[in-house]
């Protein structure tokens, strides 16, 4: 049914088609702590947006509550800063009602995995076409240092002075388990890969989930140094490159599958060659689960990159298709006929 909202939806962009990162910066000072991993994420998002060929007015950023959720305030697009945990639910309403918009979410491990966990799993299985960037710093930072659902066992925080007793979620495994079709992990210190992954998330038609290992310089400093610091990264993490063997440690080591179990092999001891290594396939969801479970084994390098990218029709597209189908039926949009119904009588 045509309404006056269609005028806005269909209006072509009249301003300059050329934008730069500066055009996406809101005239507001960024209020994160010096050294926060959030800065790198913000600047990479602002850098990719001009290349996405989406008019600025069609971009929406939505967040919940937390340090990460301040992110949208720093963006000069359409922005809503909502409630703790609810960004995905609000964003679902935006995307389902307006499939013409590019909808993004900035969230954190507390916002997305804890209070908003229900919305994460359902938005993932429903496959609403939105892009989620989850800043994982393994701590509640805005409330000044309590353990989160991704904090590691034993971590001493203000609310776990004797050490965390909970077992954590692995966000990648959770997102895959919930049916998210695009799942990736980035490091705040690896800006080139991060930019690549954000672009991939945008290209993917459906629910896209990108976890970013984000350093909290105040309450959980160095939590990811083992994987993200230059030097350590080569040794302790492995980049997932579609169609390529899983190599790390400057090509001296690789991952091979022993049954369903990934194991580290040396390419220098003469026992293995590159042909023995596991070759990454983003479209293989069984493999994605195996790779995501590597995060539970501290003897294995930590995978980052795209774990899974599969295409299936998004919920918002299916809603739109049903509406188009129904609008062809007799009586479509005839509200007077709807009000009258089939069973009425006249008083004359």
């Amino acid at each position, binding site marked *: 049914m045509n309404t*006056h909202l269609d005028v806005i939806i269909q209006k072509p962009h009249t301003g300059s088609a050329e934008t730069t990162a500066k055009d996406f910066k809101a005239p507001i000072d960024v209020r994160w702590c010096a050294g926060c991993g959030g800065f790198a994420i913000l600047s990479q998002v602002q850098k990719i947006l001009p290349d996405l060929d989406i008019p600025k007015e069609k971009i929406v950023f939505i967040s919940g509550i937390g340090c990460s959720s301040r992110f949208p305030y720093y963006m000069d697009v359409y922005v809503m800063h909502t409630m703790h945990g609810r960004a995905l639910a609000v964003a679902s309403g935006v995307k389902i009602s307006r499939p013409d918009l590019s909808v993004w979410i900035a969230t954190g491990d507390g916002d997305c995995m804890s209070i908003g966990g229900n919305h994460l799993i359902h938005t993932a299985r429903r496959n609403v076409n939105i892009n989620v960037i989850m800043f994982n710093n393994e701590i509640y930072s805005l409330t000044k240092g309590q353990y989160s659902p991704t904090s590691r066992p034993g971590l001493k925080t203000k609310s776990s002075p004797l050490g965390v007793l909970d077992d954590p979620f692995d966000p990648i495994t959770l997102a895959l388990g919930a049916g998210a079709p695009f799942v990736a992990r980035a490091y705040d210190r690896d800006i080139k890969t991060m930019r690549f992954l954000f672009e991939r998330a945008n290209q993917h038609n459906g629910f896209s989930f990108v976890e970013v290992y984000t350093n909290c310089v105040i309450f959980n400093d160095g939590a990811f140094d083992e994987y993200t610091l230059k030097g350590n990264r080569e040794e302790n993490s492995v980049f997932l490159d579609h169609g390529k063997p899983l190599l790390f440690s400057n090509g001296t080591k690789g991952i091979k599958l022993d049954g369903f179990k990934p194991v580290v092999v040396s390419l220098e001891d003469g026992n293995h060659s590159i042909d023995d290594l596991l070759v990454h396939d983003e479209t293989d969801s069984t493999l994605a689960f195996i790779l995501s479970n590597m995060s539970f084994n501290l003897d294995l390098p930590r995978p980052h990159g795209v774990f899974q990218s599969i295409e299936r029709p998004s919920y918002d597209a299916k809603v739109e298709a049903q*509406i188009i189908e129904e609008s062809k039926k007799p009586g479509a949009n005839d509200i007077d006929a709807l009000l009258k119904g089939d069973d009425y009588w006249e008083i004359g």
Partner: protein
Amino acid sequence: MNASSLKVNLANVREGGIIVVNSSGFGAKNLRLANYDENPLENDSLSNYQLYDIDMVKRVSEELADLNLSHKAVSRSKNLFALGVTYWLFDRSLEPTKKWLKEKFGNKELVYQANLRALTAGWEYALKSVKFKRQYKIHKAKLEKGAYRNITGNHAVALGLVTAAKKADLPLFLGSYPITPATEILHYLSGYKKYGVKHLQAEDEIAGISSAIGAAFSGYLACTTTSGPGLSLKVESIGLAIMLELPLVIVNVQRAGPSTGLPTKPEQSDLLMAMYGRHGEAPLPIVAADSASDCFNMTIEAARLALKYMTPVILLSDGYIAQGTNPWKIPSLDDIPDLSTNFVTDPEIFAPYKRDPVTLARMWAVPGTEGLEHRIGGLEKEDITGLVSHDPMNHQKMIEYRATKIANIVNDIPHARVEGEFSGDLLIIGWGGTYGAITDAFEKLRGEGKKLSYVHLKHLNPLPGNLGHILKRFKRVLIPELNSGQLKMMLQAKFLREFIGLNKITGLPLKAFEIEDKVLELLSERGKK
């Protein structure tokens, strides 16, 4: 139909009232199950009622003997016999039920015959039996000319939303989660894709309203539908919608609480929650439907206020009117007022929290509008710019803006209308779904010459502007409610005077005779003084 149902339902019959009894349901086992020491049909415990006891199983067995049905199947048709008796008692035609039986059982000839004959036999029995001395005639209601249909409150809400969206020239979005007794609204709207309606059956109540907030941001007429426990879960989101100043229709079909309470039973016990149940000072307009068909009108009123004032609005219905029906004069779209609103598109005049000088509504700029990119959120906003602000004086100013915006709606809603005496001793004030019962009692008492007046409220926040003046004209005010006195508390706080409550919290609808009794008691008190 048996001893247990007599025991349960006797409380609903006034003295002198009619009780039609199936005496075959009063065997030793029936009496034991119902905890009767002796058969109430055989002692004088029912002597104050008009009692018609009929062995209905025996009657239908005789009537249907030639059909060779099992005893169970024969016995099952006794309900239709009882219906036939009732139709004779009130002089109703059998034809609509005969037609319905044909539709329902037309392809099961034996079942159809058994039911049809049992119905007719009941009517014939009452006609011929010497027991039945009196037949009651109910005259046709005097209704305006036009087309009518029967409608439930939940159906009327669904139609009201579709109509409001059409008259606002906006698409409609529903975010909802199933809950008794509001679910049918979701059922209806989910089937209206033909009319462009989008919906999300969300993972929970919070996602229901949150997705609706997202759709409102995007330029839709957005709504969420729920009942008490769901409203509890939506509270934080309602606060956000108030802060964002986005239009949103929240339909709350009240049921008996607290907690899970009595999910299928009506109550009017969410009024104070609708009014005050949010953290911080967060006022919003509240409207209430007075009947099933009025749910249509009040849904449109809720949408009108939401769009014009950029605010969430709560529509209160209840389980009784939501699931019950009444005849509805079908309107044409042309009869419905225009609700169209404008999206702001001009960057020269736009600021996120710039307000209309009359309504104090902020501008609605939707994504897709070039040059109006802006940021809104739950943090306090600076006046006009909408930037995050922790300035103390700004906070007070914004609290006052939000309150004044809602309070000023008083100038945009109808005055309360007094039925009966212009002034005098006793005024009844009702609200919501008790309208039918109060009106019945009121008209009966007025017919008997009692001096009495009646105001029914459909706007609960703000209240009609003339209510204070009306109250001054009456010595005493009776407020019947299906709660412990929630409207009474609101009015006492606002008008600093005492009111008399008639408070029923049984999970059952208010009955006309209960109001009648209370009014008579009050009138006789005055007589004594």
